[in-house]
């Protein structure tokens, strides 16, 4: 099978994984905004006024970017923005690790408590965010994808 035929499917599977992951992570944070606010406070990176704004805005941004990636509407833009967002998350966690602060990274909100997933802000979380960023950049670079609403509507018109 030629690589040109495979790449749209690679892009589709990355979209599926990252899209679902970010929608679930976003919903977990949206359901507990005060918990996410407390997590962000633990990072000691942002001023109070920005903290409350970020606590309500970031989960919804993650949700819409994940949904956009999953449905295949503006998926290249969404993948680029998610790559940038993941790089920023990695930088924030790296700064916490460098300062020796031990906190939860807050990446999966309430789910960490419910499912007992380890969610510490450590080098594992940094590597995980960098892998997610690389996957998003791959979708952005590949350009073609299978099963997307954008392709469906452009084929009809």
């Amino acid at each position, binding site marked *: 099978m030629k690589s040109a035929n495979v790449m749209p499917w690679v892009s589709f599977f990355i979209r599926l994984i990252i899209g679902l992951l970010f929608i679930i992570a976003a919903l977990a944070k*949206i359901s*507990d*905004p*005060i918990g996410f*606010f407390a997590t962000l406070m633990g990072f000691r990176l942002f001023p*109070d*006024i920005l903290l*409350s*704004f970020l*606590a*309500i*805005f970031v*989960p*919804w*941004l993650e*949700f*819409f*970017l994940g949904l*956009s990636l999953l449905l295949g509407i*503006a998926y*290249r*833009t*969404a993948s*680029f*923005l998610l790559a940038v967002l993941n790089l920023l998350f990695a930088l924030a966690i790296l700064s916490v690790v460098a300062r020796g602060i031990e906190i939860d990274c807050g990446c999966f909100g309430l789910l960490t408590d419910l499912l007992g997933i380890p969610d510490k802000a450590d080098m594992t979380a940094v590597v995980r965010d960098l892998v997610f960023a690389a996957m998003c950049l791959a979708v952005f670079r590949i350009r073609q994808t299978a099963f997307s609403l954008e392709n469906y509507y452009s084929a009809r018109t």
Partner: protein
Amino acid sequence: MKRLFIEALVLFMLALMTALLFNAVSPRKIKLFLPKKSEKTVEQTTGVQEGSKGR
């Protein structure tokens, strides 16, 4: 590039509007504009009364 910018703007605005709307109607809302710290809060935090000179 122009398309990327416009789509990014639309996604940002959609997220911002939904976030503000959801926060406004949510029972577990976060206050966006926190009130300034009162003197009592400072006293409680530091244990020092304003105007006191100590020993």
